[in-house]
């Protein structure tokens, strides 16, 4: 589903080159639920933005659903984002001037879908996240958890092949975070491929597979001393 090979991302200024990703390799199979972890500044979000075709990369290869994306133009990238990828952002990223229904409708309109099908998909996805009664509410009238559910409904409405979640519970309290996580697990159980970037080891532990990023590279967890610290602390707590 998602395969990056020797991928690099370099930010260049006149005096310095900064590698956000270097010789980055990852292979996410269809139907997998992968959690991507790593310390701040390690390149998690850069990986996600490249995976979601929100940003281009400097070198290497990236195949998404069998398509080599490096040579695609902006329109083709937009089309893939619209049809194959569902985004769930930490800050929800709902459009504040549109109500819940209209927010979910945004990507469907860009797909040129007929109104009746749009409506059906929107209501189905709202049912799926338990917010069918809030279709006419504006984002500001919803709690953080509800807003994130709307964002998930927006991502699901387009039936994407891949769900990319960037700290989906980062702005939520524990109870709301648990609800959102359970929703993602349900979606995964129904067959979706999910790649989730998170700081939270507990959330990461609920994913099928963990990928750890350090300094722009995927590393074996055993190589990261901070992983041992976290696990040692967790072990102390259990003891």
């Amino acid at each position, binding site marked *: 589903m998602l395969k990056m090979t020797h991928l690099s991302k370099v930010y260049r200024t006149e005096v310095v080159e900064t590698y956000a990703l270097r010789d980055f390799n990852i292979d996410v199979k269809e139907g997998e639920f992968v959690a991507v972890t790593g310390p701040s500044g390690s390149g998690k979000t850069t990986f996600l933005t490249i995976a*979601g075709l*929100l940003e281009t990369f400097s070198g290497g290869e990236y195949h998404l659903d069998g398509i080599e994306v490096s040579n695609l133009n902006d329109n083709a990238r*937009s*089309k893939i984002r619209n049809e194959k990828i569902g985004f769930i952002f930490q800050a929800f990223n709902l459009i504040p*001037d549109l109500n819940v229904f*209209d927010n979910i409708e945004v*990507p469907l309109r*860009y797909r040129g879908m007929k109104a009746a099908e749009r409506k059906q998909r929107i209501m189905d996805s709202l049912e799926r996240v338990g917010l069918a009664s809030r279709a006419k509410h504006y984002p500001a009238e919803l709690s953080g958890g509800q807003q994130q559910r709307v964002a998930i409904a927006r991502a699901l409405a387009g039936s994407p092949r891949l769900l990319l979640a*960037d700290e989906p519970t980062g702005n939520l309290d524990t109870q709301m975070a648990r609800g959102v996580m359970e929703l993602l697990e349900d979606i995964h159980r129904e067959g979706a491929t999910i790649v989730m970037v998170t700081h939270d080891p507990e959330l990461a532990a609920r994913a099928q597979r963990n990928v750890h990023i350090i300094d722009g590279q995927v590393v074996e967890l055993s190589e990261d001393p901070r992983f041992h610290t976290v696990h040692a602390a967790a072990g102390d707590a259990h003891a």
Partner: protein
Amino acid sequence: MDILPILSTLRRHKLTAWLLILEIALTCAIVCNAVFLIGQRLERMDMPSGVAEHELLQIQVADMVAPANPYARVAEDMAVLRQVPGVISVASSNQVPFGSSSSNSNIRLDPAQVRWTLSATTYFGENLPKTLGTRLVSGRDLESSDFVDVDVAMKALGTGDAKHLPSVILITQTLAERLWPGQNPLGHIIYLAPTVGLRVVGVLDSLVRPNAYDISKAQYTTIVPLRMGANKDQSYLIRCRPEDRAHVLDAALAALKKVDPQRVVTTRRSFDEVRRKFFQDDRAMAGMLVGVIAALLIVTALGIVGLASFWVAQRRRTIGVRRALGATRRNILNYFQTENFLLATIGIALGMALAYAINLFLMLHYELPRLPAIYFPVGAIALWLIGQLAVLGPALRAAAVPPVVATRSV
């Protein structure tokens, strides 16, 4: 493009949206009326005179000492002017087309008529149609036997002595059609006073009146065969080839001075100058209105640019989200262009109603004609185009917002 979500967004920004709509409405209303006023002025400035404009010169002289025989003086002046190399024709005249100063007569078709039919201007002087270059469409020109000395005619008018009054008259075909619609005007009698009946012997193609302020009555013109004697401000019209005007004017002035070195030249000008001076207020008004329109359109365009730029900056994050959700750059460009089109359309609709109201006010208080309907679509298209051009810059900036903005915290 999807209009409903855009309207939904605009409903959440009512104040700024309405400010722009009102600005567009005011501009539309004022521009429609101003363009109409400019059109009126241009139409007036383009008014045909019926004379050979580029071939005419006017000289006015004032004799410091009254000549013993004013008619002989005019005859002498005209004779010396005819001798000037390049002169094609010379006329004495009481007035010139577009000359502002006008001699008018109240015209009756029946001597017993209490209220006159209309007021027309009265040219008199010798050799006028030929010198002016106005074309005779039927009948004949005035002949020397038709002419009466103006002083004699004035005395005869007081005594009611018809024998010493002119008996014939030339009129324009516009005046003829107004007085006797669909009829041959030749032979009809016009009464300039109850005792002064003049038979129409010739019809002129066109000859504008000096005070042509009302375009609908600008061709209400007559030529009466009255011979002029030298007076305090005797006017001569000289016809020559356009390229000869400068040297003919100099030579004509010298010739007139030779007749009487004491005389003062009060006016020396080409007919082009006469026309230019007559319409200078119209030109100034049209120029001012063009300035007002330009200023209004620029202010409106800047308003659109300002608001669109503000909205682009304010919505940068949501533009990024839209891009992340699959919007192409074209989708974003279309969004802002459609939004502007909707605002402009509402503004134009209000502006048209306002334009109609302003026109009603101008009709009531300034006797302006009704604003023709064609100005509404023209104004609408102009404002739509300006709106689209004004929003293009901010919309292109919006379209350039990369999708990755969606992932960055503001």
